[in-house]
């Protein structure tokens, strides 16, 4: 452990941290411009988002909200790490939720088995919707980013149509499906916030995705297809297979996100179910550095800030709740901006070091090293 190594770790942690801090400072300025104390605002958000009292547990609400976000974020992680830049989590989430609602109403099974079947339906539909861009990318070289924009719009329209016409429960101003049977509901630990098994499943999924990407051959192939396609191809890995797997697994995860939202919180699908949870998950995945554990942590953080801004800031301090999402969006912008900066700094430093070594007359400076600079920024 030499000084260079310490410096590098400091740089790679410090720069993103600075980006987050800058976002917080801008948020503080926005709050201060309203004549409120930013410190009060921050403590209110933390209080209302992450505290747990005897009568009402705010943290439970945050964790309940976090579950579908984490699933969508994991879907995004699997896709992005494989180099499938899909932003289709929104559509997969919507249709997965709808599948769970249909299965929950249409199929009657014993309590233990029913949610499992419903979640399987959600995952299957999500995977089907997710493999479409992967197929198009692998065989027709269609840009997956662009096609998923269209697929998201189609999924949202399809959901609103189905909820309003074939699957509509009763005549009302807003269309919604029949409620799922009691047996299909995911158990909750806390009735008031609906914190329950859904979050446990999200945590399990986090660990499974981490294990899959980091510790299995298939996951390794997928990561290599994303990070070093030439290496992956030369070593005989199938990049087409990796992309298809990414579409299936990523879609299934985002579909499960819709499933746990329906089975754990909503118990039915209402018109406008596609409300941006999938996109939130995608941004959580990006903020979490496209790692499974990072995505899980950021998902909880994201949900906590949202709950804290809604329940705390707006009600207690009268600061519009949009400040929460504004600061989160600022974090994404600044984090995106610091990534190339980091690469540049590291490049300059290593160039200087080589120059110095050469000036000193050392020959080891030219020796090849098996390290890829800035591979994961």
């Amino acid at each position, binding site marked *: 452990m030499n000084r260079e190594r310490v410096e590098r770790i400091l740089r790679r942690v410090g720069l993103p941290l600075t980006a987050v801090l800058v976002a917080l400072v801008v948020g503080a300025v926005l709050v201060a411009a309203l004549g409120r104390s930013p410190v009060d605002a921050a403590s209110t958000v933390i209080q209302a988002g992450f505290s747990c009292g005897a009568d009402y547990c705010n943290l439970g609400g945050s964790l309940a909200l976090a579950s579908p976000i984490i699933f969508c974020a994991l879907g995004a992680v699997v896709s992005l790490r494989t180099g499938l830049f899909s932003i289709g989590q929104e559509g997969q989430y919507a249709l997965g939720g709808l599948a769970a609602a249909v299965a929950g109403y249409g199929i009657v099974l014993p309590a233990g088995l029913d949610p499992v079947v419903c979640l399987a339906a959600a995952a299957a539909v999500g995977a089907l919707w997710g493999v479409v861009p992967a197929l198009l990318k692998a065989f027709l*070289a269609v840009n997956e*980013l662009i096609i998923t924009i269209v697929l998201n*719009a189609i999924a949202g*329209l399809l959901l609103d149509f189905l909820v309003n016409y074939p699957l509509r429960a009763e005549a009302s101003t807003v269309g919604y499906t029949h409620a799922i049977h009691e047996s299909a509901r995911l158990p909750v630990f806390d009735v008031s916030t609906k914190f329950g098994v859904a979050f446990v499943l999200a945590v399990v999924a986090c660990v499974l995705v981490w294990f899959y990407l980091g510790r299995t051959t298939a996951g390794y192939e997928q990561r290599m297809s994303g990070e070093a396609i030439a290496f992956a191809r030369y070593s005989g890995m199938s990049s087409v297979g990796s992309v298809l797997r990414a579409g299936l697994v990523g879609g299934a995860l985002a579909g499960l996100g819709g499933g746990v939202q329906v089975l754990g919180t909503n118990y039915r699908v209402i018109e406008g179910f596609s409300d941006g949870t999938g996109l939130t998950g995608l941004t959580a995945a990006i903020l979490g550095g496209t790692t499974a554990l990072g995505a899980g942590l950021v998902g909880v953080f994201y949900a906590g800030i949202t709950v804290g801004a809604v329940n705390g800031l707006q009600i207690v301090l009268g600061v519009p709740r949009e*400040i929460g999402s*504004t600061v989160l969006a600022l974090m994404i912008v600044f984090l995106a901006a610091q990534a190339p900066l980091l690469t540049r700094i590291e490049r300059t430093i*290593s160039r200087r070091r080589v120059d110095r070594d050469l000036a000193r007359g050392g020959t080891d400076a030219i020796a090849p090293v098996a390290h890829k600079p800035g591979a994961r920024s």
Partner: protein
Amino acid sequence: MNEIADFVNSGIRLTTPILFAALASMISARAGVLNLAIESKVLAGAFVGILVAGATGNNLLGVASAAAAGALIGLLLAAAHRLGVDLVVLAIGLNILVLQLTVYLMRSYLGGVGTYSPGIDRIPPVVVPVLSDLPVVDQVLARLNWIVYLGGALVVLVALYFRTRSGRHLLAVGEAPVAAASAGLDVGRTQLVALVAAGAIAGVGGAFLSVGDLGLFTRNMSGDRGWIGITAALLALNRPAFVAPAAAVFGFASAASIRLQQFDVPPNLTQFIPQGAAFIALVVVGLRAKSRRDVSRLWRRSSRIPLRWPGRRPSTPVPTPVGTVHDAPPAPPDHSDR
């Protein structure tokens, strides 16, 4: 007859913002930048436009500042692109940022919870000398202000621009930045100009929504029109000749969905048609690109892994000319591991 004229009129008004967004998307795409921040540009234009128009009472000034707001976001994107920032992530962040920030500012300073209505006069409709006196045509032209006509004029202007010397340079930069740079074109500056122009156009599209058509601002006023504009540009295969018809398909489809509600026809059924058309168009482009690989590069540029087909495109390293922003020079060996 009245019904049809009314339908055409509302179709044109619904098409206009989509047309502006589609033009913005097309210009960016042809300059070689996948610009997903159109949504934020439209929304920023709508917000700034009504703010300035409300403060000064001058609609023209409002539209001009809307264009400036969009151009500013374009400038930001261009600067980020030059630095090598991932534009997709940045665009997603910007879209959320503008959506949330406009609502935050509106609630904080303008006193509106979901709507801000400064009580300005909407931009008056244009009275066309002879046509506005004809019986049916006057209904079609009713409530169409100068921004609508500007949209049509811009389509022609962009089509003509692509045929000029500097327009050809822009297309060259978009199709082969390295080749364009070695021919002496300034890739960075061309893309900057394209992104700023695209931003200004999208901003005017936003101003049409707030200052031009409704005279108020609501939460998420752009309502996915930026994304629809991107889709419309794709449906038009990023060609100026097809942009207006493609945007009209989306605009008229939503006009039809509003009309058909009274006959209890599912409103979103008609909106499937343009989205489905866009999907098919993308797949067809994919099929074509498979036989003509050059085209596909334009589509694939944004995606992280270039899934090359085996046995194609020899990968001889191209020396990076000064001025490109696409291919960063190979990094020197990193010795930090020792």
